[in-house]
């Protein structure tokens, strides 16, 4: 079943819930190799998104919703994650502009555009121990699943699983971008908080699709 604006809304709702629930976990990951605010930043941003979204008319498209999410995250998250996630959602909005529903290929375009937005702003490569290490495997897994003819829910499930594996795989890495890069070898053994929040976000997308 193709995904519509209901799914987009549910994704955001679940993302806000899961980020609020995992606030302290993200704070503590960021305290280990960053400055301890990532959970707070994401929770603040998605709370604001939730408030704004409730004022958006029910007929608003997925693209409208993503645009609102992106603008709100830029306005409220701050830190590195704000402009990065904000740009991701604004690019996702552009990728889905004009579409009533999103099929599997459309989802791959959406995820690719979002990931490309993060890379354009942050200039990180895979292996730099950033959120890109969750997004790029997710994009790749989504593309493979779509190629295999999976439906959108299955595509997102594959993406979420790959993002989780990608977040986990940041643990042995030395960081080359963001605050964690100052740690050198000392970052080894710690998961990147942005990769972890990305995995949570993509899991929320998959859960929203599974429930649809």
């Amino acid at each position, binding site marked *: 079943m193709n995904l519509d604006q209901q799914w987009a809304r549910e994704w955001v709702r679940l993302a806000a819930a899961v980020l609020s629930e995992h606030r302290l976990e993200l704070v503590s990951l960021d305290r280990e190799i960053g400055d301890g605010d990532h959970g707070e930043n994401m929770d603040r941003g998605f709370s604001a998104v939730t408030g704004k979204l409730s004022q958006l008319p029910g007929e608003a498209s997925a693209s409208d919703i993503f645009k609102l999410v992106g603008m709100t995250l830029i*306005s409220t998250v701050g830190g590195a994650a704000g402009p990065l996630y904000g740009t991701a959602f604004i690019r996702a909005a552009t990728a889905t502009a004009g579409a009533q529903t999103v099929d599997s290929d459309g989802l791959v375009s959406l995820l690719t555009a979002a990931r490309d937005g993060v890379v354009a702003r942050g200039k990180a490569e895979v292996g730099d121990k950033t959120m890109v290490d969750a997004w790029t495997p997710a994009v790749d897994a989504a593309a493979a699943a779509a190629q295999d003819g999976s439906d959108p829910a299955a595509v997102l499930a594959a993406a979420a699983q790959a993002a989780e594996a990608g977040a986990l795989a940041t643990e042995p890495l030395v960081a080359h971008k963001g605050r964690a890069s100052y740690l050198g070898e000392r970052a080894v053994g710690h998961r990147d908080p942005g990769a972890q929040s990305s995995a949570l976000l993509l899991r929320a997308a998959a859960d929203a699709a599974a429930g649809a």
Partner: protein
Amino acid sequence: MKKLINDPKDVVPESAAGFAAAHADLVSLSTDPIYIWRTDAPVSGKVALISGGGSGHEPLHAGFVGFGMLDAAIPGPVFTSPTPDPILAATQAVSAGAGVVYLVKNYTGDVLNFETAAEMAGADGIDVQTVVINDDVAVQDSLYTAGRRGVAGTVLVEKIAGACAEGGAAIDEVVRVAQRVNDRVRSMGVALTAGTVPHAGEPGFVLAEDEIELGVGIHGEPGRARIPLESADGITEKLLTPIMDDLGLVTGDQVLLFVNGMGGTPQMELYIVYRHAAQLLAERGVEVSRNLVGTYVTSLEMQGCSISVLKLDDELTELWDAPVQTPALRWGR
């Protein structure tokens, strides 16, 4: 966590409110979005200087808003860059048409958010130029990291570029001077203890009773090494040597020596460090012709200090000496 705060979510607005109430003669407060600006801004014909970043480094930046320094400061949440919205609002509030210079400490978050605000202000027809401050010599491997961080040297950039703008210089000139200060200042810090971000509730890192973090960043980022506690003179030497080497200081150079407290360090200790730093510079034949000792760029209640050295010349010395009147730095009026 023991702090004189109410709800951790309110620390920034409440301290900004107290700050603005205490310094109403110098600054005004916008509460939504939060920024602090000179009561007399926009100052006709003057290039406006704006800085900002995560809170928790006070008096940086709001303490330096006023005559001869910043036109506006945007305090983000603790240790988190402000978003583009308040930066844009502050830009619009203080822009007098002569251009606006953003002084941005080199952290991914700050750079990205100020970059976004600059794009938006540009779309509004405001000429915004940005100088990124990266004075922290603790970061050696700037290619495989997010680069040198902006730390205590920021105050010197703000003071000297501020005097330049106050003197009526055009925007390119102000940018040139700010860039020159950044090019000629190097800093390095040390932590004895960690600060606690209010909403995190636990220290940002943990040092053993006999350990210190050499080269620490102002958000508690790690530095060059975690080493055993040693004497103030030993620590001073470990902080100053990389700075002197990086600047390539030679006999006859004149410098400004800045010993900065990290928030929880008593003044007595800062002067003990200053004493030996001045001695070491003198041994190299370097003249300390200006100095600053105090708690100016902090990391919450962290105990520790940083040393900054700025290589002076006549232009920078004159601008340093120019009158300044802000809540945290004042002379000549």
